[in-house]
């Protein structure tokens, strides 16, 4: 029976000192996709770039990147390959697939709609 654990439940919050700026799960996916539209990158690089691009406003708990990467790869939105870095280390590089590029656009659009809706709601009250 595969419905034993239909979906892994949310981890209890606040154990490792996450702040309220910890992004939602879907947001991580969007951030990763967006980051990878620039160039293929390894996990650490992605986390660095997210921090740079958001000026640290969204403090991604770096480790939570990896379940997200696995999830996206399973959806065939990204692909991975092991390469040797400039510093001579082995690292797993991720790049967007064609489906991933399309998804990045759609996710961004839906995020914008979402933000606008929340914004409109906040403006009302």
């Amino acid at each position, binding site marked *: 029976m595969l419905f*034993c*654990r239909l979906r892994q439940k949310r981890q209890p919050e606040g154990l490792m*000192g996450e702040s309220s700026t910890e992004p939602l799960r879907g947001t991580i996916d969007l951030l990763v996709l967006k980051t990878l539209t620039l160039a293929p990158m*390894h996990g650490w690089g992605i986390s660095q770039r997210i921090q740079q691009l958001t000026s640290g406003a969204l403090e991604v708990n*770096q480790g*939570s990147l*990896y379940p997200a990467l696995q999830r996206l790869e399973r959806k065939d939105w990204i692909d991975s390959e092991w390469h040797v870095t400039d510093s001579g*280390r082995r690292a797993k590089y991720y790049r967007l697939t064609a489906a991933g590029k399309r998804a990045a656009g759609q996710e961004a659009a839906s995020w914008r709609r979402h933000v606008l809706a929340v914004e409109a709601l906040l403006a009302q009250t």
Partner: protein
Amino acid sequence: MRLYKWLGMTLREVVHGRAVAAEADEEMRFHLAMETEQNVRAGLSAQTAHRDALLAFGGVLRHREAMRDEQPARRFEHFVHDVRFALRLLRRTPGFTIAAVLTLAVGIGGNTAVFSAVNGVLLHPLPYPNADRLVTIAHTTKGDGIPTNLPNSSAMHVVYSPAKSFAAMALYESDKVTLTGRDLPERLAIAHATQSLFSVLGVSPHLGRAFTADEDQPGAASVVLISDALWRRRFNGDRAILGQTVLLDGSPSTVVGVMPSGFAFPSEDVQLWMPMRIDVHKLEGFHTPGIGRLRPGVTPEAAERELTSLLPRVTTLVDFLSAETLKGAGIRPDVHPYADDVVPISVRRTLWTLWATVALVLLIACVNVASLLAVRAEARRREMSLRSALGAERRHLLAQSITESTVLVLLGAALGIAFANIALIMLRRFGADMLPRVGEVRMDGAVYIVTGLVSAGAALIFGIATHRADGRSLELGSRGGTTDSRGLRMRHALVIAQVAMAAMLLVVCGLMVRTAQNLTRVDIGFRPDNVLTFRVALPEVGYPAAADVMHFHNAMLERIRHLPGVVAAGATSDLPLSPMGSSGDVLRTDRVAGGPNTLPPAAEMRAATPGYLEAMGIPLRRGRLLRDDDSDPPSGAVIVTDAVVRKTMAGREPIGARVAHGLAGVRDERPWSDVVGVAGDVRGTSLEEEPMGAVYYPMVNAPGVNMEWLARSMSYAVRVRTEPMALLPSIRAFVRELDPALPLTEARTLRSVVDAASGKTRFAMMALAVAAAAGLLLGSIGLYGMLAFATAQRTREIGVRIALGARPGAMRVSVLRQGLELCGVGLVLGLVAALALRVAIRPMLYQVSATDPLTFIAVAAVLMFVGTIAAWIPASRAARLDPVRALRSE
């Protein structure tokens, strides 16, 4: 593309789980190393840099867990874990496990076996293309004047040919012939059919060709089609059989084709098919069944209306049938699905009833297991509370409950399917006489699907029921003093349902037992013990004249009568209780004046030698028996039966009355026969059917009646003092002595003929009895279990009451009353339901009312008895209860 990726990753995770984990580790190590390096570059000490990197990462272990949890393989691991846990649990309580699995196996097995039969016999279409368009064309009459299958073979051929409702129509007739040739002579079933039969059925020979229209003309050269089985057995499957000549009853026929294997029309035993060669200029005969293929979209009712409008044309073709006669006799066409004839309505009813019965047994079984699970859930309260307190999620506990009950149901289903297979093997071996199309009963996809659905439904319900019980116990905590009322109500409802279902089962079974009893008490009209019967058929080649036939039978009987131990011996054209028994024909007597527009009542026409009635033990009521000198020269003497006297003589003296058979008799074209004696009636075709009445003609030479065609194939009856079958070798030797080319067939005791006739009822009764016994057993176990448990639940309450001064006797009464109340309510509901079902049950009964008070009272008594015992044991336990221990107990 996406699916491939998903599958590829999942497959890799399953197969190379360790490598995947190692990769993830390496990836995270790389991340930490880079972060540490960056921190060092920012000026931190090596140690601090590493610590900060770890902090920013947020726990390597935690993220690795998260990754693993998102892998589908991981969910499978949970499932395996749950299954293992369930198996461990079941092993730990073997009593519970065995009880539950056996109960489920009985319920599921019974359902699977009976559904296989329903599926094979009722639901599978007949093995012809578009079989739903095949209809039987028969005729019915008002009253019992004429046998019901009355299509006038040749007249129907002509009269109905313009009918537009049919794509094709055919007539057929069953008979037996003796095949002689290279091997031993063999008696085989044959069908004579019009050439259109094969286009009606939509089947053609797999070798050779079907009949041509020319071959179906009177006087055409004789051709024959043979069955695949006969071709392989007798002709070694040699293709050169086509065009060869075979001898049937001594006359040559050319084999033109071999029918495909499995083709069995109109019955399983038919091996040969010949053209009927109807002479449309000589219209007569009243015994030929017809089969038609409806055009698409035409209903049998519409076809019947069209034939009804065509029927009056017959009066212009057949001079002796006037419009008034048709109307007076109420003759009208009857068109109904052919499938109804293959599987008679009685068998359909039996099978549906049986299925309903085993469904009830399954329900009882499910209720039983549900109550067992509920009881166990109570016992596991502590465990559940503990696990819940330790943070187990309810969702996971539900998943586990469902897994547990699934494992239980799967074990039960596996065992049940094994049971069903055994039952089906037995049914195929012993059930051929009892059930039509029994060869098509097997466990196929549909059967497994139904079994699977039933099992899945049961598992889900059990899982949820157990979980709800678990959930309640979570809320109640570990020290619930009394049970909550919801659980109590549910258990009470289960007890009532169980008793009600058992009551319904027992009523049906009881009525079937009464039916079987009545059938064994039916006066069959003869004494079946110590009688040997067999059949000898004489072909026209070798026995061309009536005198030859008579000479052979007389010689046989003469020898048999001289065997030691033989009391009496005789022969007849048709034994009683044989489905192929002679059909009747109208009988005119001089005791009543028949109106011009009415057909007189019908009576069977039988040939009998002297000694036959004595050998069978058929009583002679009045007058004398037939003698040897009645045959040669013909004296015109006949014996009639009670029913003939009752139906045709209007209370006048039968001895000396004159009778004439058939339409020829009605039209005064046949000399009268003189009634010299009156014999008792016998059941002609089945136990249930009232005797039609018969006229016994002396073999061969009755004046004006050509008995030769009947006397050519005679069944012998030999009454002996000892074991009947012991005589057979001597009798076989006699037949060989007289004619080595003659087969002796259908050798068996008269008792086995009677047993075969009661086969269908016995099958239904046996199956229902087994189902009812299983239902009663499961029901009583369940009842006892529930009452015992309910009493155990009241232990504290009873303890308190005893401590406060209640007398033990009062406690016993209280528990007993509770049990009997539940039992009584269930019983009343069950009996009311059985009353409501009477319409469905009635057609299966014989001489017993569907509301038979005796049965209902007996069922009530049995169930109340079982209920009393089931309640008495826990009641006595309650009375013996030690209050101190009771209060301490959980």
